[in-house]
């Protein structure tokens, strides 16, 4: 793809101003990670657009702020789970356990059977030798 021609088509401006069609948006977002030139052009345009908007901002009437605050107070808080800042994510996901069962590796089943059978054998041997010992002692 000729990125220079693609940039000249006005795709970056179109995308940042919301004038691109869904097909153009999809294509642009697919290409974005692969072409640093696109990313740079987008950042540059966004930066200048924001500066232009800051220079030309018009303060809304005072009562608008109160109305917005009233509406926002009615909104539910942002979910706590989303408050973790990306990059600070822990290596695990905190989850609330609701099931009464636990899941373990399959090898524990075999080990449990082996231990169970050995325990039974030792128990039988213990009883056997105990009886033999009592028998010999009585004699």
């Amino acid at each position, binding site marked *: 793809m000729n990125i220079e021609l693609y940039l000249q088509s006005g795709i970056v401006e179109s995308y940042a101003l919301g004038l691109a069609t869904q097909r153009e948006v999809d294509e642009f977002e697919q290409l974005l990670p692969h072409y640093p030139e696109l990313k740079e052009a987008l950042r540059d345009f966004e930066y200048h657009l924001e500066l232009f908007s800051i220079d030309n*901002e018009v303060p809304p009437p005072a009562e608008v702020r109160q109305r917005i605050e009233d509406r926002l107070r009615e909104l539910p808080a942002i979910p706590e789970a989303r408050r973790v800042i990306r990059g600070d994510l822990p290596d695990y996901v905190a989850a609330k356990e609701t099931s009464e069962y636990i899941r373990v590796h399959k090898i524990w089943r075999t080990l449990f059977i082996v231990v169970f059978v050995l325990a039974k054998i030792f128990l039988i041997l213990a009883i056997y030798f105990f009886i033999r010992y009592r028998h010999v002692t009585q004699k």
Partner: protein
Amino acid sequence: MEKTITKDLLKNELYSDGRPAGELLYSRYSGMLYSYILQFVSEAEAGTLLVDIFARLTPQLNEAFDSSLSVYCWLQIESRKIILEHLRKRGDEAAGDRGPAVAASYFSLLEDALPEHQWVFREVFLYGKSKEDLALESGRDLSYVTQLLRECLGMIRKNLG
């Protein structure tokens, strides 16, 4: 202090001290968005639209953080959708009276453009028409409309600096 705000900075500020997201968004973007809205509607309607925009977009802020766009561009694009939806509902595609901020709007970046350029940008940006619809309505060739729009966008980029 930087003039523009990055996503990470905004996220940190929004979530670090427990302040409601809306307050910071308001102090940072309300003036910019109000000026933006005034390109489409009169002052009488702009206030109500700004309230609506903040109420609807604040809970969706995580979408902005996940987007490839800057927070401000995301806000603008989503605001424009709400404005165009409002205009369609009231059945006034002509966008009504313009507010006092028109001189400072994107159209000020097209002051030196030909009337044809301004027409294409107005129809596409302000009235939300597609290039295809515009070409069909006006009886002009789609490639001609596309070229005019491309030139408009080039002028805007150049005049932004």
